[in-house]
């Protein structure tokens, strides 16, 4: 008996077709994975089920939940169904909770909406539910406010709200994407446990095949609002029929071409015992200033032609190091030396800037939307000593565009005309224009869809070989570092806890933290191996 049955679901928003003829069903006690890249319509599918759609949407078809067609249900009745029969878990735990209400109030609110119960009893049951999702009252009293919790803890509160009155259907929209790998692993475990204990049907929406391979019973793969592949989870192993899904699997399991370059034994960048503390700058009458030690006595070096990975979870100090190397933020002690010149935040010479470039996570945010691509890419050229004619500039930019896999004529376009992956290619072209020695890639591929990510990684490998570049590849995702670097540094709470040859660290990590990072990062290969 199906708990939910979606039949020929079509959605258009302002006449634009978003979902086309979706049909799928879910049973109690089952995890249904909906997989797709950005723009595939997976989130809109979830929003259609709870009927929280943007203005101007029109839906046709059937969504049958426990013998009731939700599309024919009034908004008033939907209010009784949301929360009671359908629980919802969102992607962004940092913003999914009301900042002004305590977590107890927010969880108990669900109970009070749907049951006749007084405030006190509701708060008590909320405490029990919070305990169930791993937030015991002793450590996390329900009088806490969301800002006092970490991302993973907040996501537990969101889960507590979703399961508060034991709905039969839970929809989770990328619930672990914004979280660190160790936190993600714990949350997946929690969700699996709840599905079994409460006999829930969980619809798990994600872009990440490795997450789904670890938990789902059935999967749907979506593209451009259509289902391109469906079946039991083991179709991932050897039953995929559609070309797109085959490619998706391949990209998720991506291994870049092996790095094939000779690493020099001369040092390019030396980071010598640097520290950076942040203190709150407010004037205080009593007590000492609170000091946060973001980076504590960190030393490492990068040789010519070497790719080094820097891995750690959010808040470990990775970005602080990037900023220090770029000379954007002063360090309190230690030295950073690039080819014999010291980098000081107060005074970074043009010469240093030329040798050092950076590519950030969000390519869109790092471009001026009013400049065309020619101007965006050629902007760093002002650092060159000699004047470069416009004609020369144009030729350099055209050549670079082709080098990074774009069309030479794209130089006329503006940044909003490109997709995320293309923007990142433009960012890479910009970083190459001065022929730098070192490029810092700060989560440069983290925001990209897997298939695009694979292409960009390939490009990066190729460029580093042909230009003889060194990379400092910063990421929270171990699997990315594995394919592109020869040496890796693992960072935790402002310190480097382990460093060494990338292969060695993956094969035999020695520090407990590295071990847990490797163990908890979802591994598609091993998950697939387990499937029968």
């Amino acid at each position: 008996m199906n708990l939910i049955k979606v039949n020929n679901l079509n959605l258009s928003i302002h006449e634009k077709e978003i979902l086309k003829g979706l049909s799928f069903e879910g049973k109690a006690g089952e995890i249904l994975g909906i997989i797709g890249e950005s723009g595939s319509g997976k989130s809109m599918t979830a929003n259609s089920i709870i009927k929280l759609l943007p203005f101007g949407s029109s839906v046709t078809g059937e969504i049958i939940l426990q013998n009731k067609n939700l599309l024919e249900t009034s908004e008033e009745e939907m209010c009784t169904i949301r929360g009671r029969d359908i629980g919802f878990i969102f992607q962004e735990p940092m913003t999914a909770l009301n900042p002004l209400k305590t977590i107890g109030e927010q969880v108990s609110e669900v109970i009070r909406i749907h049951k006749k119960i007084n405030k006190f009893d509701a708060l008590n049951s909320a405490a029990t539910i919070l305990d169930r999702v791993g937030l015991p009252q002793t450590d996390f009293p329900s009088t806490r406010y969301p800002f006092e919790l970490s991302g993973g803890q907040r996501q537990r509160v969101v889960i507590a709200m979703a399961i508060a009155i034991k709905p039969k259907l839970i929809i989770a929209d990328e619930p672990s994407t914004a979280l660190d790998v160790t936190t993600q692993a714990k949350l997946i475990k929690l969700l699996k446990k709840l599905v079994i204990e409460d006999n829930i049907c969980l619809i798990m929406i994600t872009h990440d095949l490795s997450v789904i391979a670890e938990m789902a019973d059935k999967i749907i793969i979506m593209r451009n609002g259509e289902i391109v592949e469906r079946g039991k989870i083991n179709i991932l192993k050897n039953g995929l029929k559609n070309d797109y899904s085959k490619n998706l699997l391949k990209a998720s399991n991506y291994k870049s071409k092996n790095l094939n370059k000779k690493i020099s034994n001369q040092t390019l960048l030396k980071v010598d015992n640097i520290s950076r503390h942040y203190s709150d700058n407010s004037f205080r009458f009593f007590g000492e200033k609170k000091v946060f030690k973001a980076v504590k006595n960190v030393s490492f070096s990068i040789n010519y032609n070497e790719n080094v990975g820097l891995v750690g979870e959010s808040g470990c100090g990775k970005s602080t190091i990037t900023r220090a190397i770029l000379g954007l933020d002063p360090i309190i002690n230690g030295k950073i030396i690039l080819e014999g010149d010291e980098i000081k935040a107060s005074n970074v010479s043009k010469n240093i800037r030329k040798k050092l470039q950076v590519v950030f996570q969000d390519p869109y945010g790092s471009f001026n939307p009013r400049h065309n691509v020619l101007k965006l890419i050629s902007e760093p050229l002002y650092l060159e000593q000699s004047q470069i004619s416009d004609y020369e500039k144009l030729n350099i930019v055209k050549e670079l565009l082709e080098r990074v896999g774009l069309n030479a004529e794209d130089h006329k376009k503006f940044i909003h005309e490109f997709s995320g992956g293309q923007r990142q290619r433009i960012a890479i072209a910009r970083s190459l224009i001065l022929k730098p020695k070192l490029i810092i890639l700060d989560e440069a591929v983290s925001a990209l869809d897997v298939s695009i990510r694979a292409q960009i990684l390939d490009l990066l490998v190729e460029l580093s070989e042909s230009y003889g570049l060194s990379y400092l590849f910063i990421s929270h995702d171990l699997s990315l570092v594995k394919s592109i670097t020869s040496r890796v540094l693992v960072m935790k709470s402002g310190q480097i806890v382990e460093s060494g040859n990338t292969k060695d660290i993956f094969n035999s990590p020695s520090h407990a933290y590295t071990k847990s990072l490797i163990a908890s990062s979802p591994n598609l290969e091993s998950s697939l191996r387990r499937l029968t």
Partner: protein
Amino acid sequence: MLEYFFRRVVTLFFTLVFASIIIFVSLEIIPGDPASYMLGINAQEDTVIALKKELGLDKPKFERYLIWVKGMLIGDFGVSYTYRSPVIEMVGERLWVSLPLAIYALLLSTIIALPVGIFAAANRGKILDFSIMGFTQIGIAIPNFWFAMLLVYLFAIILRWFSAGGFAGWEDGIILGLKSLTLPAIALALPQASILARVMRSSLIDILSEDFMKTARAKGLSFKKALISHGIRNALIPVLTIIGLQFSFLMAGAIIIENVFFLPGLGRLIFQSIAQRDIIVVESVIMLLVFSVVLVTFIVDIAYVIVDPRLRSSIL
């Protein structure tokens, strides 16, 4: 929390000291000597000197500053040069008009603006929203003295519901006093309410697109209930800032409206005193206004902390 409170109080104190210096110095710079002004152009040199001595104007400037500040601390604001009556009494009388007027106007503007802003935000993009926004635009654009004159024309001259001006005093009952403040309060409140409604609307629209509003809907709250229990309080934080600024403006900025309605308020007092070079009155009234502005800012700062738990923890 205590430290935060303490720090605010210290800030308040220093602001007042700084303001008193600025006020004293700038009024010293203004040309015109009160003594010669009072005695007229034909006064004898020695009479002027005698009067100066009587008023204490012959003492060194720094000493006069200290006397002035010391007096204020013990509630003695000096004696008016022109009326020869204690400043504190003159100000006290006027304060009983200006303060109720400011509070009345602020209440009116808040009571009108918040629901209107919320209503517009909830019906965003619809005709209702557009018309409300249009009206508030007009409300901001109309000069309030002109609006005041329209009010007088309609309610006092044609309908005869209110008197055209003057203040009935509080002796004959609160109702009568309030009645004579009603038209001025409306005239003052209109532009304030228009601004406040727009701030409320845009602040709430920002909040409506927040993720936690979707969470609230997914819990089973209707749009309206989600708006009330999750939206409004979050949207109120920027609104508080504007309310604080408006109160200060209403206390000090009512000069024109007081003149239109012949109200014996602080605004008119300052106006007259400046014209008569009654510096001691000007100084004291401005100081009082500064004090009220600083005090309201202080209250708003405390209110933030009550509304927003994030601030509460950052100051603990």
